[in-house]
């Protein structure tokens, strides 16, 4: 498929453009956003829970800080961790799935037993348990933690894909040419799994955002910086925001940020699916 | 004894819509089924024979559509104009169907007995009231042990057994006509022989009219009284089995015969048909067989051939019928 074809497909449905634009907006906020604001946002005891205005487009929080600024600054914190977690999830899932499916036999059995165990143990309680034992101050550590409960499904899916590819002709051909396992895995099978991997990466980002924000909301992670989960936590627990209609924007803003990001990812996912799956293009 | 028609099809056309393209899967079909006969309907896959079979029960579903023609059933009248209630009675009480894929034609989650019960319940005006008794009787007729099969789920039966259950279910309400859609195709040779034996037996006992859809000429030769040859949505030749097999007039039929190994095993003479059937989305003007036909002349690319009588009850649709047959085949 040429770039022109891709572009034609892209502009055919407005939702593709909307989704990609929204996602780009979030990425822009994450990259550039924090530098637009001072490192420590000014507080103002006289400007608590202000309604939206030109100065504060989304109003202010319990300390008089600008809510929009909090959202923008939080974007980086959220996306950093979530995308790291998604990459770890996908790498671990794909590597284990490939290994297991390709080697088969005892290795496969042991790996799948372990995978099943991770799939069975309820994810959220496990995250909470670990987070309460290990102090989660480092974003990378949080990302690793989030991926612990997420890779199992992908590993199983990749494995079953590999099992079906294994018997196909071109893999047989590669084998009869005595090309090594590594060649077969990475030159012959992995390219065919690419669509799968890309879509799972996007899904893993969504999953990681939910889990991350949720755990910050629950107060399981100690927080150093502001992010959407921390905002929710403070809104729920502090300053009586949850009991006042004045604080509506403060409370709803992080939720809207999450939901719009989710919407953007769903739309982009549909586009990616359309690119990879020609059958969907007909209708 | 003169044949009495039980089912008459006139100028039937079925289209298939995908996106912007329209495919005419069945085109201008005229065909009559006579009471008590076995008619073989043969042709390559994709020629429209299954669609025609479905149309007889008015089982044409989106994206297929009947766009013209008539189907007239003895005593019941015009099938295409039946209301919902009479259509429900027409189906299975008067005409039943034995499906191509024995594997999936039965509901995997119901036992044979449960499926038989649902059939009887759906036809309160039918002849039989006791599904168990009727099914037991029919299972015996198709050489199955009712004690074992009645309470079995489909997956517990072999392919051949499932196909026989399919035949028994089709006979449930003692229909006048049964359409059999490649009932032997997915089976091993022994099961095929068993099914053919059973069908012959059923036909002798009940005198049920049968339309036998297949691509297997040998099966037709063994079972059918008459044979209709379909090509690219049309019937190109129709006649008694003897007439069509020994004095085939349409070049396609002749080619089809040459592609079948002769029964007495004489070597040589086995030829495949060159080329592919035409793309139904973009049919050329004139004859549909022109690109593969050794006899094609300029006129074949312009004029559509219509069926003309070439013998007693034998007709063929070809412009070059005056030509001597290509080669004596299977003689």
């Amino acid at each position, binding site marked *: 498929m040429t770039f022109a074809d891709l572009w034609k497909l892209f502009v055919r449905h407005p939702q593709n453009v909307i989704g990609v634009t929204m996602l780009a907006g979030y990425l822009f906020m994450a990259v550039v956003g924090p530098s637009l604001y001072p490192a420590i946002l000014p507080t103002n005891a006289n400007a608590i829970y202000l309604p939206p205005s030109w100065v504060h487009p989304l109003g202010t929080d319990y300390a008089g800080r600008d809510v929009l600024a909090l959202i923008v600054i939080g974007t980086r914190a959220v996306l950093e961790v979530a995308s790291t977690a998604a990459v770890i999830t996908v790498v671990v899932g794909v590597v284990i799935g490939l290994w297991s499916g390709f080697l088969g036999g005892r290795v496969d059995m042991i790996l799948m037993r372990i995978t099943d165990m991770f799939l069975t143990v309820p994810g*959220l309680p496990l995250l909470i348990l670990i*987070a309460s034992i290990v102090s989660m101050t480092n974003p990378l550590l949080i990302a690793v933690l989030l991926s612990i409960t997420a890779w199992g499904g992908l590993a199983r899916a990749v494995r079953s894909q590999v099992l079906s590819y294994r018997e196909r002709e071109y893999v047989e051909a590669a084998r009869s040419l005595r090309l090594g396992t590594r060649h077969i895995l990475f030159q012959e099978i992995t390219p065919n799994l690419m669509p799968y991997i890309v879509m799972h990466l996007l899904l893993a980002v969504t999953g990681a955002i939910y889990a991350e924000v949720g755990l910050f909301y629950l107060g399981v992670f100690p927080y150093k910086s502001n992010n959407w989960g921390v905002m929710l936590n403070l809104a729920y627990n502090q300053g009586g925001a949850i009991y006042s209609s004045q604080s509506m924007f403060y409370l709803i803003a992080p939720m809207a940020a999450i939901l719009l990001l989710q919407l953007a990812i769903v739309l982009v996912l549909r586009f990616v699916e359309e690119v990879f799956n020609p059958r969907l293009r007909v209708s | 004894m003169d044949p009495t028609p039980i089912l008459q099809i006139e100028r039937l056309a079925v289209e298939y819509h995908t996106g912007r393209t329209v495919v005419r899967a069945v085109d201008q079909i005229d065909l009559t089924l006579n009471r008590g006969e076995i008619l073989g309907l043969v042709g390559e896959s994709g020629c429209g024979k299954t669609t025609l079979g479905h149309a007889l029960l008015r089982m044409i579903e989106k994206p297929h559509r009947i766009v013209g023609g008539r189907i007239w059933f003895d005593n019941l009248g015009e099938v295409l104009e039946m209301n919902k209630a009479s259509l429900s009675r027409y189906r299975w009480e008067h005409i039943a169907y034995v499906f191509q894929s024995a594997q999936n034609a039965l509901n995997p989650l119901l036992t044979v007995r449960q499926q038989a019960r649902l059939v009887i319940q759906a036809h309160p005006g039918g002849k039989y009231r006791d599904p168990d008794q009727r099914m037991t009787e029919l299972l015996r007729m198709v050489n199955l042990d009712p004690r074992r099969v009645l309470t079995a789920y489909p997956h517990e039966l072999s392919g051949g057994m499932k196909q026989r259950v399919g035949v028994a279910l089709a006979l449930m309400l003692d229909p006048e006509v049964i359409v059999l859609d490649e009932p032997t195709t997915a089976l091993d040779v022994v099961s095929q022989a068993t099914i053919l034996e059973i069908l012959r037996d059923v036909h002798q006992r009940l005198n049920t009219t049968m339309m036998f859809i297949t691509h297997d000429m040998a099966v037709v030769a063994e079972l059918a009284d008459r044979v209709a040859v379909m090509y690219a949505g049309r019937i190109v030749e129709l006649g008694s089995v003897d007439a069509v097999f020994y004095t085939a007039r349409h070049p396609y039929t002749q080619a089809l015969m040459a592609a079948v190994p002769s029964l007495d095993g004489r070597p040589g003479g086995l030829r495949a048909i060159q080329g592919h059937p035409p793309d139904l989305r973009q049919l050329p003007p004139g004859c549909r067989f022109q690109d593969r036909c050794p006899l094609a002349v300029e006129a074949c690319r312009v004029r559509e051939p219509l069926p003309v009588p070439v013998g007693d009850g034998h007709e063929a649709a070809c412009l070059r019928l005056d030509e001597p047959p290509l080669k004596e085949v299977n003689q």
Partner: protein
Amino acid sequence: MKIVKRAGSALVMVFAVTTATFFLVRLMPGSPYATELYQLQQQGYSVVQAENQVRVLFGFAVQGPLWLQYLHYLGGLVHGNLGTSIMYPGESVLGLIGKAVPWTVLIVCVSLLICFAIGVGLGTLAAYLRGGWFDQIVTIGSSLLNGIPQYLTAILLFYFLATLGHLFPIGGAYSPAVHPGFNLGFVGSVFYHAMLPILSFVFSGFAGWALLMKSSTVSVLGEDFIFTAKAMAIRERDVVISYVSKNAMLPLFTSLLLSLGFMFGGSVYVEQVFNYPGLGQLFLNSTNSRDFPLMQGCFLLLTTAVITANFVADVLYTRLDPRIRQ
């Protein structure tokens, strides 16, 4: 025979998780046992006293070789001894869990049934009307709603209907004004309090079922045996029930129990938001107060519930599908 084998592997799983939890909690840096021991000593207990205290708290000996501690711990489990809570002094972990579990079971099971019913209904309709506007709305709406985190729907419902709207209580499982027991006031109060938690689960849960049911029904509708049923003129009602739904719902039953386990985990969010005294909240509170015996007990129970659900799903599936049943 298969059931015995599956039960065996479920037991192995429970055992493995128990063991993993034990060593995880025991070996992590800043081990809670060591912390507790240290804290007690700081409070002026002697080493022996502190050890005794910790033994009571955790339900097994803390000192001695690790394998011995582990055996003590397992021995305690077998006798139903999960230790004593730290934040609720004098209360056994088992007793606390026993009080919390019914509430979680109530909201999780009721919501799951509602989700399932709505999802199956919408999914079936969308499948029958596929391509039409109803299908479009259900499919697009469901893919947007599907996977919206429970805490978001919970907070929104809590904020608008409970704290701002004053339509629902802001916490608890029943009103202090009613007497627990089988009387109308109590049952009514229980349902009144459970309403919003259940709604939160339903909002974030039904869409997944609708999508699942739709795709399952669409694939069943394309099966040959549906065509056969129509050719047999089987009554519409029988086709829908015995042919379509029966086949389409079969794969959903497994997911039903699997998601029961998943929802048990998700109860942490919902119960936290609504201050609902179930297992999820107990677990969360225990982690916040670093009440490790209680935390370990809750986690074990949550995990066992999920593993049991998996096991029951397996068994049920082989019962329901004659193709697997032997």
